[in-house]
């Protein structure tokens, strides 16, 4: 009876891993570049409203945010409607002019994204808009979610 001898493969059975760090570093650099680390702690409560005809802001680096909504108090309560820019609450709306003017000098293509709570009244939004007009930051964006 014929007996077949099992041939063992002569090639090495190893996945080459020497290039793995290179690939990982490439991914790493991609994520490092796309990450925007700056995050603000919200001191006002903002629930977005929804709309259908919305556009995307591709360049996040141009965007500056203004948050408008009821102030968060301790114990899940909310207070009066306040305006927050970066990490501070703005009490005097007239100060917005100077803040936004400075930002515009740094970034001439500035887009101001207004993140307004859906239950706020429109009056305060207009006041902020008037200040933006005085500062010269005319490109704005009402932040909304896509309607389902």
């Amino acid at each position, binding site marked *: 009876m014929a007996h077949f001898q099992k041939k063992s493969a002569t090639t090495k059975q190893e996945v080459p*891993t020497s290039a*793995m*760090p290179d690939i*990982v*570093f490439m*991914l*790493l650099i991609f*994520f*490092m570049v*796309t*990450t*925007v*680390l700056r995050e603000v702690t919200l001191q006002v409560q903002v629930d977005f*409203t929804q*709309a*259908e*005809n*919305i*556009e*995307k*802001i*591709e360049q*996040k680096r141009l*965007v500056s945010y203004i948050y408008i909504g009821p102030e968060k108090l301790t114990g899940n309560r909310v207070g009066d409607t306040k305006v927050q820019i970066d990490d501070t609450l703005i009490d005097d709306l007239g100060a917005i002019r100077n803040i936004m003017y400075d930002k515009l000098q740094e970034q001439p293509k500035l*887009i101001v*994204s207004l993140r*307004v*709570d*859906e*239950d*706020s*009244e*429109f*009056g305060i*939004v*207009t006041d902020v*808009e*008037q200040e*933006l*007009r*005085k500062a*010269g930051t*005319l*490109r*704005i*964006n*009402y*932040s*909304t*979610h*896509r309607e389902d």
Partner: protein
Amino acid sequence: MQIKKRDREGAEIPSSSLADIAFLLLVFFLLVTTIDVDTGIGLVLPPEPEENQQPPPIKERNMLKILVNAQGMVLMDEEPTSLTEVKQKVKDFITNRGEDPDLSESPEKAIVSIKTDRQTPYSVYIDMLDEVVGAYEELRNTAAQDRFGRTYESLEDNSDAKEQIKNLYPKKISIAEPDQG
């Protein structure tokens, strides 16, 4: 004299754990990255008017006045309207091209003015703005389909085609200052 050659060990940095370190960093950045994009309704505010500057004269017929009160009720050119009818009415107004003497002369001259109370809820205002912007988008889409057989969205940014459609239906939305309520 013969100097004895020493067999020196190859000076190598151990690189087997390099991948591990890189993975660790990678995982960190994966976690902190937010992929979600900002979405919203874009608008360009009018510049601050100079002192003693009179507003430019606008013919009554070229202006569509939309009033929204604190209860969210809508008045379009002194006519009570429900929110669902707004889009069609805006489209009729823009594409009138001089037919109806009460509506606009041409799309370039048409201006939509939105006025609210100070007490109007923000969501109602956004719904209103959404309808008006939607009307313009639909008109632009139709025009783009007719001329180029593509949707307005799919036309390239800053291309001649897109600019052409844009100039055909310029988005002139005016946000009037609200009444003190």
